């Protein structure tokens, strides 16, 4: 029977420790990182956690900052392409499998459209934050354009301020009109509803897959500044300071995070069924405790001795503005790196000199670890949830009402797993690239040392065989 994953991970760290001893005769750096790595303490199957530990052991935490900056500046487009491809493929197989791929009469422009509760579409309550408010930029982009914005969430916010009026989406981003939205406010005790239908461009000669694909292509999933903001929210719970949330809502968000974490911790070919999303009582207790901190906008970073930490939204907002206005990749990389440093300094503000290193390391570590969660959370924003809900309503012949985002996650489990695996792959390739460069560099030195030793050993044997005394041999082979 082979080694367990935990043993294999330990063996890799053992190889590194051995290589470091071989390379460094002075022992000066050997004692760094003696603390047992988190990825070795757990039986996690997530390669990102393991690689984060490996890279920080090999190169140090600064490399994690570089990896994060590179992913944000150079890899987001690739991630967006792969995510969009996965969404299109999954929606196509979903609607081709169970129903007629024609656009259903109700979804056509001449039809009634599909209606969904606003609270189901916006489970994290972002529409409680106005794009034009002080911190609107944390979530929305292209704010001033309002209904003409290229950010569908900005457009949707403005649509729900304009009750019972139909607005079209698509031309804002250079496509023809794709979708018509109408906000229908509550009447009496009923909930606020949002109505969605395909635009008149899809009334003839267009299939449902055409509409789905055009919808997906029209949406900008990961604007870089908003992506940065969302990562900081994942680490510091910043959005809760600017969006009024109840503990119950924070609880739902954390349940979603919990499900994403579990999916991240699966192997690529692992089978997932609905029971996978069941949460134990002990997990629920932990989530409730976190939810209480989340609504207060508080987080606890490891290394702060459990001190609650509050990061002001203005810090995140300033960094986002700088990233959004940076031109060219080189300037963007510099700006992101500087922004991370600023946030790290904010994070270490509470610590004394002794634990600042640990806090900074944990902050950079969290940045990478939270990438998959952040990307998945951004997919679960109103602009895409609406599309998912439409498709699942088409497939769901029983027409049962949708009960919430946790149900959506179960329905979307294959899609989410595919997306998470692709994103994991991209993050892993970035970290593995750094690790492999350093390992190759290290191995080059080890090979040099061993090669030199083998030559010296042979000299020693030869000298000893011709009768040269031991002390002289030692002296002679030092040169």
């Amino acid at each position, binding site marked *: 029977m082979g080694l367990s*994953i935990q043993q294999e991970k330990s063996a890799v760290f053992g190889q590194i420790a051995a290589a470091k001893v071989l390379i460094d005769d002075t022992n000066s750096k050997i004692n760094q990182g003696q603390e047992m790595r988190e990825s070795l303490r757990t039986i996690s199957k997530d390669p990102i956690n393991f690689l984060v530990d490996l890279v920080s052991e090999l190169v140090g935490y600064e490399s994690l900052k570089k990896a994060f900056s590179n992913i944000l500046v150079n890899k987001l487009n690739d991630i967006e392409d792969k995510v969009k491809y996965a969404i299109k493929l999954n929606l196509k197989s979903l609607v081709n499998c169970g129903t007629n791929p024609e656009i259903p009469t109700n979804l056509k422009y001449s039809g009634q459209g599909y209606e969904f509760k606003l609270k189901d579409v916006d489970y994290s309550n972002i529409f409680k934050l106005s794009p034009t408010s002080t911190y609107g930029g944390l979530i929305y982009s292209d704010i001033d354009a309002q209904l003409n914005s290229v950010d569908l969430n900005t457009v949707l916010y403005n649509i729900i301020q304009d009750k019972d009026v139909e607005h079209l989406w698509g031309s804002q981003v250079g496509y023809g009109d794709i979708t018509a939205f109408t906000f229908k406010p509550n009447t009496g005790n009923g909930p606020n509803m949002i109505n969605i239908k395909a635009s008149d461009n899809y009334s003839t000669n267009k299939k449902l897959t055409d509409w789905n694909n055009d919808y997906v292509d029209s949406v900008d999933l990961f604007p870089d500044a908003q992506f940065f903001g969302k990562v900081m929210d994942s680490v510091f719970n910043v959005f809760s300071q600017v969006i009024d949330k109840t503990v119950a809502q924070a609880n739902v968000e954390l349940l979603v995070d919990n499900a994403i974490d579990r999916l991240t911790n699966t192997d690529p070919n692992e089978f997932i069924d609905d029971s996978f999303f069941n949460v134990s009582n002990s997990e629920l207790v932990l989530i409730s405790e976190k939810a209480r901190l989340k609504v207060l906008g508080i987080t606890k970073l490891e290394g702060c001795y459990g001190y609650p930490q509050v990061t002001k939204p203005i810090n995140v907002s300033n960094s986002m503005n700088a990233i959004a206005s940076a031109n060219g990749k080189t300037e963007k990389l510099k700006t992101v790196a500087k922004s991370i440093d600023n946030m790290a300094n904010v994070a270490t503000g509470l610590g004394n000199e002794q634990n600042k290193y640990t806090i900074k390391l944990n902050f950079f570590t969290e940045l990478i670890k939270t990438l998959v969660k952040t990307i998945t959370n951004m997919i679960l924003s109103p602009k895409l949830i609406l599309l998912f809900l439409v498709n699942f309503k088409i497939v769901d012949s029983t027409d049962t009402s949708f009960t919430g985002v946790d149900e959506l996650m179960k329905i979307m489990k294959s899609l989410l797993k595919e997306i998470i*695996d692709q994103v994991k792959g991209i993050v892993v390739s970035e970290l593995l690239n750094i690790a492999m460069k350093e390992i190759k560099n290290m*191995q080059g030195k080890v090979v040099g040392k061993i090669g030199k030793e083998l030559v010296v050993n*042979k000299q020693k044997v030869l000298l000893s*065989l011709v*009768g040269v005394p031991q002390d002289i041999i030692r002296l002679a082979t030092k040169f």
Partner: protein
Amino acid sequence: MGTFDKDDLKKLAGITTVIGVIVAAFKLKFNPQVPLPPPLIFVGAKLRQGLSSQQITSRIISRQQEAGAPIGVLPDSSDNVAERMEKIRVEEIINAFLTEAKIDVVIPPGIPVTAAGGGLGVVIVQGATTNFASGHGVIS
């Protein structure tokens, strides 16, 4: 690193693949050493003094400082147990080498042979060995 397609990325999402890639990077390959000249071993081996645990121990203790380990009596005036332990360790290892170690020697086929023999007249034969031959030795 090159570019990855979606199948590559899916594989990279698995911990087993990642560990496999890293473990492969640690594998080192060296060319086999050229054997020592046999006549030199034949002559030189006779000149060696043999193993001494006392000498090895003293060399190790004299180099302890290279690893940052204290030499001699400790600052609190207590005995340096690590040094005593080193002596015991080396003695035991050397004792095992001297009394338990066994060296097996294999001589491959194809060794040139010149032999003389015969009944009425001497016959000189030249050839090569055709079988493996083995021998034993001890460490001293």
